[in-house]
């Protein structure tokens, strides 16, 4: 696909909505509220904002700049940056592939739970319902023994929606879907929060969420948690923003757009924190226990605690349930579209394939793996372990390698800064290079050290070693190995044009012409 014919966003608003749709995902709803509560409550705002401004938004700008400058998905973009950097791009593609196969499953669960909400058919014991009646989880990790139609059918539907959206293209598919879904998500979630605020005990939950524990600010682990939240929540580090920015027009305000996307993501997180803790306050008050006893995150919050709460909501419980699970579904769906687009776009840039065949082959293969492996009695175990390892040793590690390689080894930050400032309304000065060259590598390096130390002390989730080694290290390591192997395949002459681009870019850079 030549750069001249590259697809483009219809409008700047369309790009921003798609970027926000990608950033706002499940983590905003089920991760942020608990992380903030657990790390100083109201005082968490300080490290959180510092992390947003010194790592989140600078990383967003970096990915926008790489995608916009080289007008390509990650492998081709990194290759144009420097031919030896190509594996970084394929590594991000591998990460996106792994995430998309399990992420879609959670979206499918949300679809089913929206339906269950109508009659609260999960019953009184919501935990037993989730793991037993609904997921039929096996007693221990092992070979797949059964398929679960109750998950398989909504999963197939979700994948069909994703493939149709991607098949329609950047402007008519991705942009159009986000133009509908993001305002819809905002409206649904606002109604949910208003309903939550009217529950008895809501103020108890909000008090627990916002009461500041200022001693937390001097605790290093709180800062790591803040950077981790910003980092995982913004969808940076696995090439989505490179891909989306490659569809921008030449004169696009990169830094200004990054500020909007970054603050929009945090705005939704704050709203989710208010909604979730108002609801948890209701639960704690009803059970006459402290909020700390009911506060939780992740799957337990969404699929165990919330159904339990919905059982007890006196007015319109079905409405509350539908609002919550449809919000989860919409937030997850827009993120899923962006993740699969990285894989599709990368294969297109590499092979010159047209969009529809690429979506059918690449997206279809991704969907097939997802449908074959996850709606099974082993699905939850595989999801849990691959999610943990691909987050830590995929997303976070790849981001660390990217900032070290691009910032230090290749010394490309000054050039990317010139490129960004040439089209942006916000001056970046020394702040951006300092944030990416020093703050981000130091924090990510510390996070990595912290995480590996924990890994060596005990098996994640107390799973058996063979399972951790295959579904965890195997999957995360496989993405790295495959990235190197794919990069070794020589590019055809068509792709050789991109070598010329590389030379042009390098020349332009050396002459200081920027764009």
């Amino acid at each position: 696909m030549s750069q001249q014919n590259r697809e483009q966003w219809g409008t700047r608003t369309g790009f921003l909505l798609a970027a926000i749709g990608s950033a706002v995902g499940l983590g905003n709803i089920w991760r942020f509220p608990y992380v903030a509560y657990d790390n100083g409550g109201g005082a968490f705002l300080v490290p959180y904002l510092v992390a947003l401004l010194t790592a989140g938004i600078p990383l967003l700008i970096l990915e926008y700049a790489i995608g916009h400058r080289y007008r390509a998905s990650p492998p081709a973009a990194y290759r144009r940056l420097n031919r030896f950097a190509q594996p970084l791009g394929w590594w991000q593609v591998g990460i996106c592939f792994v995430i998309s196969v399990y992420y879609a499953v959670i979206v499918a669960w949300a679809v089913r739970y929206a339906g269950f909400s109508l009659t609260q058919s999960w019953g009184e014991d919501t935990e037993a319902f989730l793991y037993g009646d609904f997921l039929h989880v096996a007693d221990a990790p092992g070979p797949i023994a059964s398929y679960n139609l109750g998950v398989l059918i909504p999963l197939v539907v979700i994948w069909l929606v994703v493939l149709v959206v991607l098949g329609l293209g950047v402007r008519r598919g991705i942009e159009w879907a986000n133009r509908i879904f993001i305002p819809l998500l905002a409206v649904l979630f606002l109604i949910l929060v208003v309903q939550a605020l009217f529950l008895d005990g809501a103020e108890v939950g909000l008090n627990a969420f916002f009461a500041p524990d200022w001693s937390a600010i001097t605790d290093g682990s709180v800062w790591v948690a803040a950077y981790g939240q910003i980092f995982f929540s913004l969808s940076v580090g696995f090439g989505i923003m490179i891909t989306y920015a490659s569809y921008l027009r030449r004169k696009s305000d990169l830094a200004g757009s990054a500020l909007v996307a970054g603050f929009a993501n945090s705005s939704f997180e704050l709203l989710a924190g208010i909604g979730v803790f108002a609801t948890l306050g209701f639960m704690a008050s009803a059970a006459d226990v402290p909020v700390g006893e009911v506060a939780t995150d992740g799957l337990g919050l969404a699929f165990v605690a919330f159904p339990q709460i919905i059982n007890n909501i006196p007015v319109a419980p079905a409405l509350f349930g539908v609002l919550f699970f449809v919000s989860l579904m919409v937030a997850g769906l827009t993120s899923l579209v962006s993740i699969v687009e990285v894989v599709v776009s990368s294969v297109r840039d590499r092979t010159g394939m047209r969009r529809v065949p690429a979506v059918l082959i690449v997206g279809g293969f991704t969907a097939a793996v997802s449908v074959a492996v996850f709606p099974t009695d082993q699905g939850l175990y595989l999801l849990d372990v691959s999610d943990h390892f691909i987050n830590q040793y995929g997303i976070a590690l790849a981001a660390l390698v990217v900032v070290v390689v691009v910032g230090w080894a290749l010394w490309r930050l000054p050039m990317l800064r010139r490129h960004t400032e040439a089209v942006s309304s916000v001056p970046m000065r020394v702040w951006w290079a300092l944030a990416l060259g020093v703050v981000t590598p130091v924090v990510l390096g510390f996070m990595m050290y912290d995480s590996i130390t924990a890994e060596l002390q005990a098996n994640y989730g107390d799973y058996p070693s063979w399972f951790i080694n295959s579904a965890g290290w195997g999957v995360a390591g496989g993405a790295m190995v495959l990235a190197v192997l794919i990069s070794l395949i020589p590019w055809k002459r068509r792709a050789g044009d991109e070598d010329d681009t590389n030379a042009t870019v390098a020349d332009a850079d050396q002459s200081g012409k920027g764009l």
Partner: protein
Amino acid sequence: MSTGAIVMLIVSAVIVWGGLAAAVLHLRRHPEEAED
């Protein structure tokens, strides 16, 4: 709610939602130039 919690609620809302509003307004004041 305690005074500290109310203050932090207001401060968070002003900074995060205010930051979004300011970023959107800034972007609107800098419309995209036409392509060459």
